[in-house]
């Protein structure tokens, strides 16, 4: 079985159907982009893969583990240890500094280690912004703190939902270059949701969604 395997996933809300039967497999260490118009179900799919949401029907396997079989506690533990998230909105704790925000993720995972947190921020190029609060950082810098935070616990998968949605072209490129560097060093799997063709083309594979279905699956050669 593939590293990530989504089998016939349907997600129905009372007012709408977000996913109408999605099948997809992702190999370990790949970088996959998901594109598609607004409302096509990209975020819903990503959240289900990340265990933040559960499907109405169908199942998701990650590294052989059936997410549907995990209790709430086990799911939380599984997420802490295997999955990192980056969203469009940074969701940083406003009254904590960059280092403290990263250390918070360490704390929820196991114990804090300031030296390691500092090192992680250095690697995303924020060595000079260690003790700044989110409000004192630019949007691009905030997203870099988010990336450091998402990767601090060495997850096997990074799920990114419109990570550059709030950034200008230059900052977007910086973030993508950073991700590319980290991806080549640490070999985690990336699933990145975007509606921006400039962003999607950094991936090795491109999935296109429409109306709750995957309508196109193509490899990309950079």
């Amino acid at each position, binding site marked *: 079985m593939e590293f990530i395997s989504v089998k016939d996933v349907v997600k129905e809300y009372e007012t709408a159907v977000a996913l109408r039967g999605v099948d997809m497999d992702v190999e370990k260490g790949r970088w996959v982009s998901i594109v598609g118009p607004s409302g096509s179900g990209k975020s819903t799919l990503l959240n289900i893969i990340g265990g933040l949401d559960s499907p109405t029907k169908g199942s998701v396997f990650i590294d052989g583990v059936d997410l549907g079989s995990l209790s709430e506690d086990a799911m939380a533990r599984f997420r802490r240890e295997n999955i990192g998230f980056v969203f469009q909105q940074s969701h940083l704790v406003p009254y904590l500094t960059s280092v403290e925000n990263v250390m918070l993720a360490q704390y929820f*995972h*196991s*114990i804090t*280690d300031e030296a*390691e947190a500092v*090192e992680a921020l250095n690697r995303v190029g924020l060595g000079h912004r260690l003790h700044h609060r989110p409000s004192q950082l630019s949007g691009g810098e905030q997203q870099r703190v988010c990336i450091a935070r998402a990767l*601090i*616990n*060495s997850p096997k998968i990074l799920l990114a939902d419109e990570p550059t949605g709030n950034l200008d072209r230059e900052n977007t490129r910086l973030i993508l270059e950073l991700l590319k560097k980290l991806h080549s060093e640490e070999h985690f799997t990336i699933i990145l949701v975007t509606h921006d063709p400039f962003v999607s083309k950094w991936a090795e594979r491109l999935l296109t969604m429409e109306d709750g279905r995957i309508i196109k699956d193509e490899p990309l050669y950079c």
Partner: protein
Amino acid sequence: MSLFIVEAVVIGFKEALKLALVWLVFSAFLLEQNRQKLIIPFYWGVFLTFLLSLVSFFIHPDLFVKDVFARLIGYTFFVFFIGSVAALYQSSGVRLFRFRLNDTILRPVVLLLTVFYFLPDIVGSSLFIRELSLMKESYAPVYVSALTGFVVTLAAVVAVAGRFRRTLGKFFGIAQFLLFLSVVKLLGGGIKGFAELSLIPSVERGVIKFVHDVVHQTFVFLMVPDHPLLRVTVWNFIGILFSSSFALWIVLLVVLTPPVMFLYRSFTARIPEPEGVLTGAEKRKIKASIKRDRLRKAVPVAFFVCIILVSWFSGRGEQVSRFYNPKPKPVVEDKGVVIIPLTDPAMDLMDGKLHKFSLLRGEDTVVIIVIKKPDGKLAVCLDACEICPPEGYGQIEDNVVCIYCRTPIPIETLGQKGGCNPIPLKATMTDRDIRIDVSEIDRLWQDVRAGKTKEIVK
């Protein structure tokens, strides 16, 4: 229901609770260590204990044997306590020993320790129950109620508690387990029924006497100079050491230092860096699990500290209330001899209580104490020791207690010279009375006056 029956049920309840709790924690501990098979020698040990106590029940052991068992309980407590202290040091990083025993060696060890642990309590308790039934002059009801209390409690605890074993095991390393054993001993080791359900009073008495004697011997042999003035100064100083609760504080310090140090280390000691090629997250995960384990293992130790503190503070008031200090009866000398009758209508010297007699010698009133010892002999002493001002002794259960320094002295040691013991008098016993030469009294009293106590020089 008669009080005998209640007492028998309580004793049965207590012994069963001890057995059940020890079984529970031991099996949880073995589960965690993945050595479940060692429970078998434990069962054999328990079986052997009951067999031996049954034997002791029928061979009617005498006072001496009973006394041995009573003492054995105290020793068991100390053996397990000292073992746990050593293991605590070991587990907090100080390497005392470096071996891992295999099951072949551990099997007989577990069996012997089980017998060593339970035998004194079970034998002592069943002998006590026998005494109860003798007093009541009816055997069956007392035995049956004790047995009922035992079986019901054992069944209840085993049925209810067995499920928590997996979780319970995580809180116990070898040190915590030994500590648990000594606490169970301490809280439930008494074999005198309602009079002394726990071991705390006798352990306290024993340790206090020990500390006191050590301090005393040290000063007598090494430090007290012969010059009268210096002697007074030194004894004044030592008086502080002997003041009411000094020894108790020492005991508390000695007993609590190891567990408190262990707790301190549990919270502050550096967690070693995990070895091998690991990501930061993996290292942190290992460290977090070590930290969690340390906290869990600290729980029984913290619990022990609380128990010691609570029992220590609650034990103190009790002692004062049971203090017995009779008024001396005047006696007179007759041709150089003091005669004290063994019985008269008003008193019985053999009743096990402290008796005091006063004799006028010139300006002084010399007090003599007489008390029956557990072996049936009478102890005859001056109501003074070589150290403290001669304020005399009172009685708390099995001890006479120095009124000045509050040191308890086990009655069976009366008649021995030195230390805090009352100064023994040579006496002649007849069927009807005790005879003491006045010259002997005068000589020893002069010693007390002549500067062996500080009272006189003042």
